[in-house]
């Protein structure tokens, strides 16, 4: 391969790597809406470092409580929010402790 072609290939790889690094380095917030006694979406996939925001639009308190105890919001009052930074990869099932039939899942990649 000519030398200039090799340099171009290396530069391209560096650029791709930089873009990937940038995308990893920019955590973002994603929202789970609590609406009509349902978590919407029921399953949400986020990246490590992202913040998950549960927004309670109902008129009664709800909670988001991980079954493996990774988090527990306690009561999120009506029209309130609760945030959690997802640091560890994995699949997390959670529920509302006040209404146990309300279930959701957070997948952290």
């Amino acid at each position, binding site marked *: 391969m000519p030398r200039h072609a090799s340099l171009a290939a290396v530069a391209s790889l560096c650029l791709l790597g930089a873009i990937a690094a940038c995308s990893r380095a920019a955590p973002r917030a994603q929202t789970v809406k609590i609406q*009509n*006694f349902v978590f919407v979406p029921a399953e949400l996939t986020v990246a490590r470092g992202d913040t998950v925001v549960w927004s309670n639009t*109902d*008129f009664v*308190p709800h909670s988001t409580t991980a079954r493996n105890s990774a988090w527990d919001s306690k009561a999120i009052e009506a029209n309130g929010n609760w945030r959690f930074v997802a640091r560890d990869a994995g699949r997390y099932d959670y529920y509302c402790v*006040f*209404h*146990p*039939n309300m279930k959701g899942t957070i997948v952290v990649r």
Partner: protein
Amino acid sequence: MSPSRLTNPKVLGSLIAISAFFSLAGCKKTETPAADTASPAVAPARDTTPPAAAAAPAINDAQIAHIAVTADAVDSAAGELAKKKGSTKAVKSFGQTMVTDHGGVNKQAVALVTKLNVTPEDNDTSKQLKAGGDANLAKLETLSGAAFDKAYIDNEVAYHQAVLDAIDKTLIPNAKNAELKGLLEKVRPAFAAHLEHAKSIQATQSKTGA
């Protein structure tokens, strides 16, 4: 029917009566449109059928508001008792949730009737609900331990199912004001969630005998 066979026959009976009465009222209201599609054999009757609008309304918004508030109060009162007398964490927690959630529903209802300047109107259904609720409380007061837990949860399952039926078949279809109808639609998921929760506890009680 023996009270021992049905935890709260009066409350249940009241709610069944609501559904039955207003379902019949609903049937009456649909008689006229039905005549329009009737077979030719009954066609002449169409000309003499009074207009549907002339029929008295089955239930008005002020009465619906009163029924909703009463249904909340009845279940909150039972929840307060369960907080005190429940013998398991599940029953006590359920009682607390009923108090909290029905308090939330009630707050919404009061805010709406205040905004609409409507005074909830007492009616026979509300009276029956209240009487049934009082009878349920009186019965629960005589029980303790697992017997209390079972009677309370059995009643909660029956009560929430009956209230849901009344919401779907009577209250929402008869509500005239859009905001009142919207409120009923908004509180419906609460009753559905409570029903599922109560059924889960009931299933656990059946398994464990507790």
